[in-house]
């Protein structure tokens, strides 16, 4: 087997990172990298305010342990990915009613009841 070589001087950067529709950014554009998720938010358990966010227009406290974040810029489909982290030992967190502009975030606790829990969400997907 012939030994391969890597010629570093042939590696080049394009100067662009392909990303969102209509978006290009240089490889050193840190702001773009920070914001690269499509939407994100950190919400207190009672849903009474919004601690930190991007591409969120409002949060609806739907009920105990149920929150609906609404987005400023729609996703293209309902198949975007949702990641969430919870600040409590919640046994069954799940999402429902996923539309291109919002979703319903359920936090179902170990006490077999919905429980208010501080939570963070990150969303990734193609934008409309």
């Amino acid at each position, binding site marked *: 087997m012939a030994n391969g070589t890597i010629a570093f001087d042939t590696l080049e950067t394009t100067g662009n990172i392909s990303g969102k529709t209509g978006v290009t950014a240089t490889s050193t554009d840190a*702001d773009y990298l920070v914001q690269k998720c499509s939407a994100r938010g950190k919400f207190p358990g009672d849903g009474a305010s919004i601690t930190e966010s991007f591409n*969120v*227009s409002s949060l609806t406290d739907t009920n105990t342990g149920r929150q609906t974040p609404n987005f*400023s810029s729609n996703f293209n489909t309902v198949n975007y990915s949702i990641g969430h982290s919870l600040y409590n030992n919640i046994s069954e967190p799940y999402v429902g009613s996923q539309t291109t502009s919002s979703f319903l975030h359920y936090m179902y606790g170990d006490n077999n009841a919905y429980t208010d829990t501080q939570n963070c969400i990150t969303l990734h997907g193609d934008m409309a």
Partner: protein
Amino acid sequence: MTKIETPEFQGTHLWDRLCWAKEKLEGKQSDYRVVWEDPDAPEECAKVTVPDPNWMACALQGGILPPVEVYWALAEDEAKPDFKKHTRGYLLHNTKPIEPMTEEQAIEYLIMKDIPQRVWRDYEKANRPRLVICKKDQLPSTRVWRNAWKIDENVNKSQEVA
């Protein structure tokens, strides 16, 4: 403080405008809350909508957000049974952005954007209140009994909302 000029954003992807706003504008925590009940689910408790500080900053700044009718158009498309993906997303980006709003106007816009139309359309003609705009200190300070909240039917006569 020098007012930041909004670039000419018509034709710029809305998501990119939000990136600009996140970097340039200071978030505005609103004291307003919208309390509403869904007439299609009268047994459910009242819901409380809080505006996002970054979104509110965009609304106050002007030249960033599209007219609310754009969101209605996309919602109409999405409601169709054969909907798979948006084909009119350009409406968000190519429609002329709206001018600066007052905080009160922004709340009205937000209601029409994020709350179902069946709640706010003709709400003043309903036989009981189903939508109230209030200040956060008019809501109970604890949410222990949150899932039993209903809008006070005498809301127009008292300062208590729920």
